[in-house]
């Protein structure tokens, strides 16, 4: 069967040659073509592994930097919130108040409805703790007596004692004869929160700047690719290709660069968190807490990959609008 004979049949039917296939068939062909280009652009990247890897690593670093900072700041924010929620405070005994008297006071305080829980730390326990964590064990051994007072840690009931009533309770406790002083210092928590907020905005600015950098890294890569494939683009346009058709492989290339960059960045973030998780745990133990670093989690991991893929597409789009669409046969 000759091509041209069929051509005549089509002409005789009065149909344009491009109407020869049905709508669903064409839709099917459309997705086929998309899938083909999607994979072909992946294959193209894989055929130049070194140059692809170099680009991907640059993208990954640019993405990992704000992502790591984001996770750290997010952790700091959670820590500071936890501190505020536990409006716990410490009652240090006056020198000369014995452990028995202090324990007695602790029991009396526990009877009060506005006190939710009481934790009594004897002079000896305080000394042991201090010896363990302060690093002054040797210095303590020289002392012939225990200089530390007993401490009662109090946790007010958060419903009976709202934050604004806390000061009243503290003043009352300060009047007790056994009390040396009450330590309840929200100021440093507030300072921490202000710093965290400051850092959060910093991370935001850093993310925006580095995202722009990623867009331009990708657009530069795509621009070079476009240059090396300009013949193909011009021929395709001569054969009736739309801007969408010639642009598609480059958009997908941009997507792949972004996605791979995001994947590597994700790996970098997890590695960094793994490395610092042990020091963080040790640090948190010093504060009588067993804080576990909050990692990226599923949702944020997906968000990271989606954002990086989108940045890739945007990077390619910049080039398409500025160069490809204007690249016409001469």
């Amino acid at each position, binding site marked *: 069967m000759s091509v041209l004979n069929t051509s005549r049949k089509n002409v005789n039917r009065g149909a344009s040659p*491009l109407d020869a296939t049905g709508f669903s068939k064409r839709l099917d062909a459309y997705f086929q073509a998309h899938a083909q280009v999607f994979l072909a652009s992946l294959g193209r990247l894989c055929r130049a592994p070194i140059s692809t890897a170099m680009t991907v690593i640059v993208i990954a670093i640019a993405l990992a930097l704000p992502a790591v900072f984001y996770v750290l700041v997010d952790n700091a924010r959670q820590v500071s919130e936890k501190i505020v929620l536990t409006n716990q405070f410490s009652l240090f005994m006056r020198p000369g108040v014995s452990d028995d008297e202090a324990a007695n006071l602790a029991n009396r305080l526990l009877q009060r409805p506005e006190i939710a829980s009481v934790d009594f730390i004897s002079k000896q326990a305080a000394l042991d703790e201090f010896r363990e964590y302060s690093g002054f064990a040797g210095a303590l051994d020289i002392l012939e007596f225990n200089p530390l007072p007993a401490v009662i840690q109090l946790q007010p009931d958060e419903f009976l004692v709202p934050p604004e009533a806390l000061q009243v309770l503290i003043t009352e406790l300060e009047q007790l004869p056994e009390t040396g002083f009450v330590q309840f210092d929200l100021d440093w928590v507030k300072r921490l929160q202000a710093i965290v907020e400051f850092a959060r905005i910093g991370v935001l600015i850093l993310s925006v700047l580095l995202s722009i950098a990623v867009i331009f890294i990708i657009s530069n890569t795509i621009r070079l690719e476009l240059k090396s494939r300009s013949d193909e683009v011009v021929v395709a346009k*001569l054969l009736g290709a739309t801007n969408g058709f010639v642009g598609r492989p480059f958009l997908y290339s941009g997507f792949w660069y972004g996605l791979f960059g995001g994947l590597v960045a994700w790996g970098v973030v997890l590695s960094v968190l793994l490395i610092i998780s042990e020091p963080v745990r040790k640090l948190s133990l010093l504060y009588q807490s067993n804080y576990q670093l909050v990692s990226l989690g599923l949702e944020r991991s997906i968000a990271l990959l989606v954002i990086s893929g989108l940045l890739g597409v945007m990077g390619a789009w910049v080039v398409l609008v500025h160069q490809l669409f204007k690249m016409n046969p001469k």
Partner: protein
Amino acid sequence: MLQFDKVNKRYEGTGDALVDLSFHVEKGELVFLTGHSGAGKTTVLKLAALIERCTRGQVILDGENLGRVAARKIPYIRRKLGLIFQDYRLLSDRSVFDNVALPLVIAGFGRREIASRVRAALDKVSLLGKESFYPQMLSGGEQQRVGIARAVVHKPSVILADEPTGNLDPDLSLEIMSLFDQFRQVGVTILVASHDLNLISKMGCRLLYLEQGSMTGGEACQY
């Protein structure tokens, strides 16, 4: 099918390429466009393929005034055409099959239909056995036949060829021309720009003679 009506084309800097050019190619006609280099042959083809637009006058292709076609509609106009170039313009990193399939891929055909049409087109130019070859593995004449297969695979109503035999020896040239004659016989309109008068005279087709952008003569068809 293709009509030029008092067409002027002026390029910035180099002056008038076409002056008051009028001619009409009927459906199913094979017409040669000849003249010296720089006479405006290529410009005529560029206007017909919407690579350039005329400065004045009208170019009408298949009833459509090309001067009024919006930029985003140009691809759809080009799909009605089969373009053949002196330098073949094949993609060197794609096989013969993929080169010929390109117009169908662009037009959104399904894989199975593409395969059967590409084979039919390659059969027509006697290259069926070389689907998986790459262009640089083929001779000049074979490459031009791939170019022709690519130009006809989507069954265009008009074929425009710019010096299609410019790089080929006389025997191969005649072979290419006889292919064009076969296409004419099945109703395709063909406009061939060529300065090879010797070859054209053998074909006995209608001839348009261009000189400095104007029609200076012509010969009627002899078949």
